[in-house]
Each structure stands twice: as structure tokens, then as C-alpha cells.
């Protein structure tokens, strides 16, 4: 069984190798190969899952060392995999959703002549992501970590001829790099603290280490998580990342990669548990981001960007939960999974819409699409209900638990966090309703584009709708399924541990609260977009709206605070290097030349001058000799 773990990663990796090096002769069947291999690794995952269920809950973890990777002195890193319930969960999510989205892409990318490469990248992503969640040590995780970064870079910039896409890709990679610095420093700290960075020894001995060290490690891990999971302050890249093909947004920037941060924090739970300050930072980041993302989501007219904001916000929930410690880990992961379903579903829906609307993304140019594309409408609708936490659907179960846990944190902190979470829920309801209304309700607002093509909305091919349906099903039932006598809790507890905080509010109260804010949110949105017709061009809007449209000025801030100074710095340094550092060198040469030129003048061709120098020289010689004797 252990050896299958390696296979999990190897299969999609093989796919990537095949498709990327295969050359044109694979163009015809490339997408099938990719899809089959993705499905293959899902199958393996399923087998392993079955096997795992077959075993007692405390010896479910499996470990397989493939080979010794970097042995240098005390520094020993292996290529070794560890499959426990946590990673199992991810494996299923990644390969499952991954496979669906492969299928979806077959249809979606049909007309792209570089489809083979697209699937190659997708497989590469799967491999990297699986490596990330299967690694048994932080360094190998780091490899996966940057691997998914690379895949996301390649996929965001897949349409490289669009400068915007290329820029977005670069931005994503570099912002992630900043996070990665955190991860690498964390690993170094672990090495200097524990002499190793393998999960098991580090985590079980975490409490031996000084709290200071642990806090440092925790904060560094958090930095990494912020980068990968688009949390404030490193969230700026996610919005732009929507430049990528929609399946990518669905798989990488909604369902899986962006949740890696949550995985990292949950996985490192032991460290955070022992470092309260670090945890505080985590919840702070989570809380801020869930509001931040939500607000941004409200203002965007670009359907994908709206969803991106929502993703940000939802991950904020997860991070918040993870930050709460043992109270929240399980729910963080649970929300992660459910979110994986409905958010992927929503994105695929959005993709389907765009597909129908000649890649138009401005929701103000949609409207009334429910008549034209029923399947999309229904699946999207279910996802919508799920995300706003409509009772009984997935989102309801997971998000509710998080809010509950937030209150359960206790004290003012608990109130603040809980409040934030509730507020977030309200806003979520608002902006998702807005999306829903703008897209599928009201009268049609689309018109011929400048080239005179009037879009003819139509339902997408089955290759696209089927995945949407599957995901919709997931987003309806997953949450409930997990919550049947806390199945999910029991499943994960051995790994993450769990504790019940003492909530000042009863579960019922919290639920009631969420219901109320939900209704409020929906009502507001209806009032604004449901009742009266929507203008095709966005009104100027309030200050907040305008700020939100600009991602709350994040980019502007970065530009002013980092980009500009950086440019000045580099230009300045180029000048310095040329004029100063190099100038010194050339200066010396020049001065020697000048001196030479001057001395040369002495050689004036007059024999008598030469005689003078000889005469003088002799005089000096004599004087010096006598002087030597004198002293």
C-alpha cells in the first residue's frame, strides 16, 4: 500500500512530462491522456482511502520513504511521503475536483491550439499539489509549495500573448515568493531548533522548544500561508490571477492551491498551539481577510473577480478557524472541502456563462440568462445557496461551525471574531445574491460588441455541464454528510486533535444569528439589483465602492510603497555601479595614464637635460649615502 502513495504523485507527473515533451504528435489526444491520468491518480486515492477506512483510526497514517534526498551533515531531507487522514482528505479533494475540471476543460479549451500544453500544466499542478499534501517533511512540502506556484504561474499566464495575463502571472509568482521566504525561514528555524524539519519529530517535540522560537516559526509559516492563500497583506495577486482560463481559476484559485495555507497551518497545529501569539496573528489575518475579500466581492462587476473576492473571504474563514487552534482545525478543513465543491462549481458555472457570452465577463452585460442556460443556472444556483450558507446545504454546516467556534474562542476576542464572521456571512449573502441576480435574472442586457457579434447564449456541452452537476451535488450534500454524527470530526480528530471551546452563545443562537444576517444580506441585494433594472455601465458609486473596485487600493499601495521605490533603487544602483564602483577602477587607470603623460614631458630630447638629471641623480645618490651614514 505504501508504494501506492508515491504513485499518486508519479502518475500526474508522468502525464505532465508526456504532454509537455511529447510534441505536436500528441496534440490530438493530449487532453484525454491528461484527464485519464488525473482520473487514475483519483482512483489510486480512492483505493488508499478505502484501505485507510479499513484500519483502526489510530494506525491509519501511512509512511513511505522513497529515497534519501539531501544528506549533508546533520541536515537530512528525504523524499518520503506521509499519508494520514488530513492528507487523505486533500488527496481526494484534489484528485476528485481535479479530474472533474480536467473533463470540463476538454470542452472549455476545445478551440485553443495549445490545449495539450494546458493539460500538461494541469497535470503538473496535480502532481505538485499532491506532493505538497503528501510530503512528510517541510522541505519536500516546500517543493510542492513552489511547484503549485509554478503551475499557477504557467496557467495564469497561459494566454501569454495578453500582456495583462503575463503580468498577472508574474505578479502571482512574485507575491508567492515573498510568502515562500517565510516558509524557507521557518524551515531554517526548525533546523536550528530541532535539528530536523520532518513533521513527526518536529511536531511531537514542539512543546520542548522555547515559545519565542515557536512564535517565530509560526509567524513565518503564517507569512507563507498568506502568500499562497491570498490573505491580507499578500492577497493582491488573486484578483489578477483571474486572467487565467476559468477552469484554472476553479481548480487552483478556488478549490485547491489557495487552500494550501490552511493545510500548512493545520498541519503545523502543534507549533501554533504552543505559540499563542502566532495564533493571534493567524486569526487576525483570517478575520481581516474574510471581511476584505467580501467587501471587494461586492464591488466587482467582473464575475470572476467577484468570485475571487469571495474565495479570498471564504479562505479567510478557514484561516480564522485554523487560527482558533484545536477548536477550529477540523472545521477549517471541513469548510475547505465544502468550499472546494461549491466554489469550483460556481467558477465552472461562470466559465460556462462566459463560454456562452463570447468571454464577456462584465455581469452588467448579462442578465436573464436563466432562460438560456438552465443547467448552468441550476448548478450555479445550488452553489450560490451553498456558499451563502442556506440551511441544509454544505456551506451552512461548515461556515456555521466556524462562526460558532469563533464565538467559542471566548472573551472579547471571541465576540470580535464571531462578530466579524457574522458580518462576513451577511456580506457574503449580499454579494453572492448580487452575482446571481445580475447574471441570471432581470432582462437581458447584452448587446452586439464592437465587431457586431451579438452573443447567442446557449447551454454548454455535456463535457462541461457534467462536472458542474457533480460539483453541485457535492455542494448540496457534502456538508450534511460530513456532519452526520460528526463523521468528519471523528475522521480528522486523530491528526488535528479537537477541543470544544465554551461558547457564550448556544449553537442554536449562532445559527439563528447567521440566518438573520443571511436574510438581511439577500434582502439588501434584492433591493438594489432585483427590483429595479441594472444600468449597463456601473454607477460611480460610493467612496467605499470605488475603493473596493480597486481592491481597496491594495495595488496602489504596493505601487507607491514597493514598486516605485524599487525602480528608483535599481536605477540608482545601476548609475552607482557604472559611475562609482566602475569609476574608481577606470579612474585609477586614467590617473596612471595622466601621470605617465606628465612624466613623459621630462623626456624633452635635450641631451643637456638628461645630463642634468644624471648630475642631480648623482648628487642625491651621494647625499643619501652620506645621510645613511650620518643617521
Amino acid at each position, binding site marked *: 500500500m505504501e508504494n501506492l502513495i508515491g504513485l499518486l504523485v508519479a502518475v500526474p507527473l508522468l502525464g505532465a512530462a508526456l504532454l509537455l515533451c511529447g510534441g505536436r504528435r500528441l496534440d490530438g489526444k493530449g487532453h484525454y491522456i491528461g484527464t485519464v491520468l488525473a482520473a487514475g491518480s483519483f482512483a489510486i486515492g480512492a483505493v488508499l482511502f478505502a484501505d485507510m477506512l479499513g484500519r483502526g483510526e489510530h494506525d491509519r497514517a501511512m509512511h513511505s520513504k522513497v529515497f534519501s534526498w539531501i544528506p549533508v551533515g546533520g541536515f537530512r531531507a528525504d523524499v518520503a511521503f506521509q499519508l494520514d487522514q488530513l492528507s487523505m482528505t486533500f488527496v481526494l479533494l484534489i484528485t476528485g475536483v481535479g479530474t472533474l475540471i480536467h473533463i470540463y476543460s476538454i470542452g472549455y479549451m476545445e478551440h485553443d491550439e495549445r490545449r495539450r500544453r494546458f493539460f500538461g500544466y494541469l497535470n503538473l499542478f496535480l502532481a505538485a499539489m499532491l506532493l505538497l499534501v503528501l510530503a512528510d517533511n517541510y522541505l519536500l512540502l516546500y517543493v510542492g509549495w513552489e511547484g503549485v506556484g509554478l503551475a499557477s504561474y504557467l496557467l495564469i499566464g497561459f494566454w501569454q500573448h495578453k500582456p495583462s495575463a503575463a503580468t498577472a502571472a508574474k505578479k502571482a509568482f512574485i507575491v508567492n515568493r515573498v510568502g515562500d521566504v517565510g516558509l524557507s525561514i521557518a524551515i531554517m528555524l526548525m533546523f536550528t531548533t530541532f535539528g530536523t524539519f520532518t513533521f513527526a519529530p518536529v511536531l511531537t517535540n514542539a512543546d520542548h522548544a522555547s515559545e519565542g522560537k515557536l512564535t517565530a516559526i509560526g509567524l513565518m509559516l503564517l507569512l507563507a500561508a498568506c502568500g499562497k492563500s491570498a490573505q491580507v497583506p499578500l492577497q493582491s495577486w488573486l484578483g489578477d490571477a483571474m486572467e487565467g482560463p476559468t477552469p484554472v481559476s476553479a481548480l487552483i484559485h478556488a478549490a485547491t492551491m489557495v487552500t494550501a495555507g490552511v493545510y500548512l497551518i493545520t498541519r503545523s497545529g502543534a507549533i501554533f498551539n504552543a505559540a499563542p501569539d502566532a495564533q493571534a496573528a493567524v486569526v487576525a489575518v483570517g478575520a481581516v481577510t474574510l471581511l476584505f475579500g467580501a467587501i471587494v466581492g461586492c464591488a466587482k462587476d467582473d464575475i470572476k473577480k467577484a468570485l475571487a473576492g469571495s474565495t479570498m473571504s471564504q479562505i479567510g474563514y478557514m484561516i480564522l478557524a485554523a487560527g482558533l487552534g484545536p477548536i477550529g482545525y477540523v472545521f477549517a478543513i471541513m469548510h475547505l472541502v465544502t468550499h472546494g465543491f461549491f466554489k469550483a462549481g460556481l467558477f465552472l458555472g461562470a466559465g460556462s456563462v462566459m463560454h456562452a457570452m463570447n468571454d464577456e465577463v462584465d455581469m452588467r452585460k448579462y442578465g436573464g440568462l436563466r432562460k438560456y442556460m438552465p443547467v448552468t443556472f441550476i448548478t450555479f444556483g445550488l452553489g450560490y445557496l451553498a456558499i451563502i450558507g442556506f440551511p441544509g446545504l454544505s456551506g451552512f454546516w461548515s461556515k456555521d461551525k466556524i462562526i460558532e467556534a469563533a464565538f467559542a474562542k471566548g472573551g472579547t476576542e471571541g465576540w470580535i471574531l464571531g462578530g466579524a464572521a457574522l458580518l462576513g456571512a451577511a456580506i457574503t449573502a449580499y454579494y453572492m445574491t448580487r452575482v446571481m441576480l445580475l447574471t441570471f435574472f432581470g432582462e437581458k442586457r447584452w448587446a452586439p460588441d464592437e465587431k457586431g457579434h451579438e452573443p447567442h447564449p446557449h447551454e454548454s456541452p455535456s463535457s462541461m455541464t457534467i462536472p458542474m452537476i457533480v460539483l453541485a451535488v457535492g455542494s448540496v450534500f457534502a456538508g450534511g454528510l460530513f456532519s452526520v454524527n460528526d463523521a468528519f470530526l471523528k475522521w480528522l480528530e486523530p491528526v488535528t486533535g479537537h477541543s470544544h471551546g465554551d461558547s457564550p452563545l448556544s449553537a442554536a443562537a449562532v445559527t439563528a444569528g447567521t440566518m438573520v444576517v443571511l436574510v438581511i444580506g439577500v434582502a439588501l441585494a434584492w433591493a438594489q439589483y432585483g427590483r429595479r433594472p441594472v444600468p449597463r455601465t456601473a454607477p460611480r458609486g460610493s467612496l467605499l465602492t470605488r475603493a473596493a473596485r480597486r481592491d481597496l487600493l491594495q495595488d496602489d499601495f504596493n505601487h507607491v510603497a514597493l514598486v516605485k521605490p524599487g525602480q528608483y533603487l535599481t536605477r540608482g544602483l545601476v548609475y552607482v555601479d557604472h559611475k562609482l564602483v566602475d569609476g574608481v577602477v577606470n579612474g585609477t587607470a586614467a590617473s596612471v595614464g595622466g601621470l605617465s603623460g606628465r612624466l613623459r614631458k621630462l*623626456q624633452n630630447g635635450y*641631451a*643637456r637635460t638628461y645630463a642634468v638629471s644624471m648630475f642631480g641623480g648623482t648628487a642625491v645618490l651621494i647625499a643619501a649615502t652620506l645621510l645613511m651614514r650620518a643617521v
Partner: protein
Amino acid sequence: MNPVNYLYLAALLFTIGAAGVVIRRNAIVLFMCVELMLNACNLAFVTFSRLHGNLDGQIIAFFTMVVAAAEVVVGLAIIVTVFRSRHSASVDDASLMKL
């Protein structure tokens, strides 16, 4: 009188000769100055020879004369050639090569 005075004389002559070489322009005069210096040397040799009471110095003096003669032969030859080719014996005119 004290033979040492001859040394002073020799030194004086030598200096005069050297100064002449430095100051004068005409190659012939320059050359004569050199000869003067050589003579100064001879004087010194003879004087020292006297002081030391051995003959080495005097013998050297003879050698010096011979050498000086040889020098004259070569020197005049060269100077004359130059003079014929550029109708001037001024050493300052012979300054094509410089720097």
C-alpha cells in the same frame, strides 16, 4: 703646500666640467668639458698616488689619457658626422627624439 689642496682643485675642475656639460650647447664644448672632468680625475689620481706613496694612481692616469684619446677619436668622429649632416654642432638641435 698641502697636497690635499690639489684634491680640492680636482673637485673644482670636475664640477666646472660637469657644470659645463649641463650648461653649454655646442657639442664640441660639451665634449671638452667632459675631457676637463677626466683631467680632474687624473689630477685626483696623481694626488692620491702621491699621498698614498704608491704608483698605482699615476699609472691609472696614463690609462685615463689613453682612454680619453680613444674617446676623442670616436667622439669627434660622431660629432663631425652630425655636424656635416645638419650643419650645426648644437646638441639642442639634435632633439628629434623626445617624450
